[in-house]
């Protein structure tokens, strides 16, 4: 019982990160029309920039310790937004009306460029990254009816969950109630319709790219204390993020977040069985194939299919 609860409490924050990654990937897929294979890699470079900024602040004695971390985070987020907008302006805008295949190849190429840049400018070494909320974990000891149940809450996990929750709620509000959110949804549902009401779809695409990669940087910064910082630090998260988006059905952005949570918890549940240790990813993908066979539109596909 303790093991089960523990798996869930560790799986939820982990899954929330997959979900946020998937949300950004789904947003680019729906609006800008391509699967961004470089998603996690552009975020990884932004995390490296965050780390370098933090080290610079400390090295120059401008700020120290946690203050340096909190000052460096905006630098990384801005770097992510700039990467996103530049990818759209310099690369995607030229090919998007011409060839979906070219867009896909560009994102694959960017994956290699970002990884190469990280190796060249920084190094392939693993560097440690500070937690947002350090300190001893909270330990819950069951009493009475729950005698013998013991669950550990890592402090940083609580920060991760709170941040993921705040971001999800604000994204939902953005999409539902703001003009730009409606424009993003409209552009994804019908580009010609969006242009017919005067939406500048090119500008929407730039915003979507910038916003999505900024979200991925948040994921990178939150996951970095666990994965540590290195060129392939977000490879697994990106893969599971794409999977979360597929599971949620690309038609529903928030499906990606539910998909991510499911994957995160599932991963930890599989971990409990010693015989399955090391096969987590294989089992998750097997289950996902099964789900897609029976629910090809994803678990949370919208009620209405697209009409021509």
């Amino acid at each position, binding site marked *: 019982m303790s093991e089960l609860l523990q798996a869930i409490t560790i799986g939820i924050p982990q899954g929330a990160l997959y979900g946020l990654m998937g949300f950004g990937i789904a947003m680019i897929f729906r609006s800008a029309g391509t699967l961004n294979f470089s998603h996690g890699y552009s975020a990884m470079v932004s995390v490296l920039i965050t780390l370098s900024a933090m080290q610079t602040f400390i090295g120059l004695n401008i700020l120290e310790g946690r203050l340096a971390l909190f000052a460096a985070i905006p630098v990384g987020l801005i770097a992510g937004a700039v990467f996103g907008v530049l990818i759209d302006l310099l690369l995607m805008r030229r090919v998007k009306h011409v060839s979906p295949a070219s867009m896909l190849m560009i994102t694959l190429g960017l994956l290699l460029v970002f990884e190469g840049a990280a190796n060249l400018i920084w190094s392939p070494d693993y560097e440690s990254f500070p937690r947002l909320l350090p300190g001893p974990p909270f330990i819950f000891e069951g009493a009475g009816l729950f005698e013998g149940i013991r669950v550990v809450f890592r402090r940083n996990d609580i920060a991760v969950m709170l941040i993921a929750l705040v971001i999800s709620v604000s994204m939902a509000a953005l999409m539902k109630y703001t003009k730009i959110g409606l424009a993003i949804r409209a552009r994804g549902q019908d580009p010609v319709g969006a242009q017919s*009401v005067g939406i500048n779809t*090119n500008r929407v695409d730039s915003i979507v790219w910038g916003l999505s990669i900024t979200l991925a940087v948040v994921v990178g910064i939150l996951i970095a204390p666990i994965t540590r910082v290195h060129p392939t630090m977000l490879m697994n998260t990106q893969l599971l993020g794409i999977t979360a988006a597929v599971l949620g059905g690309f038609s529903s952005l928030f499906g990606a977040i539910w998909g991510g949570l499911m994957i995160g918890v599932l991963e930890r549940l599989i971990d409990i069985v010693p015989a399955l240790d090391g096969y987590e990813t294989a089992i998750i993908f097997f289950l996902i194939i099964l789900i897609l066979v029976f629910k090809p539109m994803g678990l949370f596909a919208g009620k209405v299919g697209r009409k021509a």
Partner: protein
Amino acid sequence: MLKVSDLKVSYGPIHAVKGISFSLEKGEIVSILGANGAGKTSTLFGLMGIVKSRGLVELKGEALKRKNSTEPTTKGMVLCPENRRIFPELNVEENLRLGTFVRGDFAANVQSVYELFPILRERSRQLAGSLSGGEQQMLAVGRALVASPEVLLLDEPSLGLAPVIVDEMFWVLKGLSDKMSVLLVEQNATKALSISDRAYVMQNGSIVHSGNADAMLKDDSLRKAYLGM
């Protein structure tokens, strides 16, 4: 109201619109007729800046740059595109709200749209993708009208609709000329001519005939040559 001179639209080596000129006066309904592939939709996309075009487009005497659709829409030329192009996963009201993205007072104009198409009021909370074809077309027209256009560009509003709905739609369209000028693109030439003041006939990217709508309706040889009726 709208004056177009030497408009050209090309897709790579393909010249879809080969330098056409036409005009639309205040309060007029003017049709552009022609078969599939004549360049009618490309003409509208060129006017709106949805595709790149060359030539001069003047709206109320002012030349439009047409870098994107935001500029023409803001200045009062609004497109109701072919195939409805509504947002299927947004509800009817959200679709209409988006109609006022750059222009028009939603709260004031939505009521007059609901009066024109009462069914949209009933369905205001329903997802647009779940509407019938006719209702979706009404929504598409309504979405253009909430922007209070001065020039309304209508692309094939009768496409795929049942005859009784087509009649209703054209009756509504005829009434619009009190408030705006309408450029109507249609394959259904008889219907279009019946509510138009003037018409242009397009073939292979050029205007091959123009004239008074009533005269064109009565001109048998013209109808046989270009309009297939």
